C-alpha cells in the first residue's frame, strides 16, 4: 500500500510525524481527504478534527484550532494554530497590549518612587559599610 508522510506541527511543538494512508481535515472550503500522490495544495483549516489513517489500519485524531494544510506529492504538512484565532479575538488581544503600554507609561510616579527608594536604600547600605570599615580600621 502506498503511504504519505504526514507532519503535524504547531509553533510550540511537533504533534505528529509518521506515515499515513490518508489524512482527513476540515479545510476552509470543505472537508478534504488527502491520499498519497495528491496534487500540491495549500489551504486554510477551520477549527476541527484532523484524522490520520495509519498504514496498519488504525486511526489517530487531533483537534486543531485552525491553521494551514500544505500538500506535496509525498508529504502532507499541517501547521496548526495553538490558540483559537478569530478577528475580534485578535483585536481584543491587540487592544490589551496597547492598554498595557499605556498603563506602564501612566504609573510612572509609582515606579519612580520605587526606584528612588531603592537608590536611597543602596546608599544607606553603602554608608553603613563604610562606617563599619572605618570603625574596624580605627580598632586595629
Amino acid at each position, binding site marked *: 500500500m502506498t503511504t504519505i508522510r504526514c*507532519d503535524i*506541527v*504547531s*509553533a*510550540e*511543538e*511537533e504533534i505528529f510525524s509518521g506515515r499515513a494512508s490518508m489524512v482527513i481535515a476540515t*479545510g*476552509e*472550503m470543505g472537508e478534504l481527504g488527502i491520499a498519497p500522490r495528491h*496534487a*500540491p*495544495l*495549500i*489551504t*486554510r483549516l477551520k477549527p476541527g478534527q484532523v484524522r490520520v489513517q495509519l498504514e496498519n489500519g488504525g486511526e489517530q485524531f487531533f483537534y486543531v484550532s485552525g491553521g*494551514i494544510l*500544505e*500538500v506535496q506529492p509525498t508529504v502532507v*504538512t499541517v*501547521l496548526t*494554530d*495553538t*490558540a483559537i*484565532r478569530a478577528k475580534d479575538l*485578535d*483585536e*481584543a*488581544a*491587540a*487592544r*490589551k*497590549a*496597547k492598554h*498595557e*503600554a499605556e498603563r*506602564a*507609561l501612566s504609573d*510612572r510616579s509609582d*515606579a519612580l518612587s520605587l526606584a528612588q527608594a531603592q537608590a536611597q536604600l543602596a546608599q544607606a547600605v553603602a554608608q553603613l559599610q563604610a562606617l*563599619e570599615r572605618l570603625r*574596624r580600621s580605627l*580598632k*586595629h
Partner: protein
Amino acid sequence: MAGAREIRTKIKSVANTRKVTRALEMVSASKIRKAQELMRASRPYARLMRQAIGHIARADTEYEHPFLKARAEVRRVGYIVVSTDRGLCGGLNSNLFRTLLNDIGAWQARGVEVDVICIGQKATQFFRRLNVNMVASVTHLGEKPQIAQLIGVIKVMLDAYTEGRVDRLMLSYNDFINTMSQKPVVDALLPLPPTEEAPSAYNWDYIYEPDPATVLDHVLTRYIESLVYQAVLENLASEHAARMVAMKSASDNATKAIDSLTLVYNKARQAAITQEISEIVGGAAAV
C-alpha cells in the same frame, strides 16, 4: 573580642548570600535545558512556513503582498524589543539596550521616527524613561511562553505596517549562541527579505483554497508570529544562561570574600589572645 564578633556576623551573612546565589545558579542551569528544548520544538514550524512562503511568493507574481515589498521612503520604524522580566542576569539587558539605542539613534539622526513595542518587564521599564513612542507591551510571559500571549503586540505592529504608519519593522533580542555567550541582535522583520531557494527542476504550483492572496496573507502573519516567538525563546535561554554565569561569579566572589574575612577574623582573635597573655604576664611581673 567585639571586632571578632562583628567579623563573624559578616562571614555568616556572606555565606547566606552565597547560598542564595548557588541556588539561583542551579535553578538557571536546569532551566536552560528546558528553554533549549522549547527552541528546538519550535523550529520545524518556521522551516515549513518558510518553504511554503517561498513557493507561494514565486507562484503568484500578480499579487504582491505588502509584507514582501520594500518601501522607498522610510518615515517611521517599528521595533519589537524582547527583554527579560527579571534582573540578576548580568549585562544581558543593558547590552541589548545599548545595541538598540545605537540603531535607534541612527534612524533618529536621519529624522525618522521610532515606535517601540516591549516584550518583558525590563524593556518596558527602560523605554518608559526614554523619548520614544511605546505603543504596546506585554510582560510576565513565564517559563513556558505561548504564542497566544504574543498575538496582541504583534498585531499592533502588523496593523501599523499594513496601514502605512510604520514603514519598516525590526526585531531585537538576545541570540543564544551557547551558555557562555549571548549576542544582542537587531534583525529586519518587515519587509521580509526575499527567500533564497533553489528553483525546482520542474514547474509546479499549489491548488489554492480559497485563493493565493488570502492564503499568503494568513501564512505570512503566522510566519511573523513564529519568528517573534522564536526570538522570545532565544531570549529566554539567553536569560537563564546569563543568570547562571552571573550567579556563578557571584558565588565565587562570595567564597573569596569569606576566605579573606576568615583571615581577618583569625588575626583579630590571635591579637586579642596575645594581648590578654601580655596583660597577664605584665600583671604577674608587677606582683
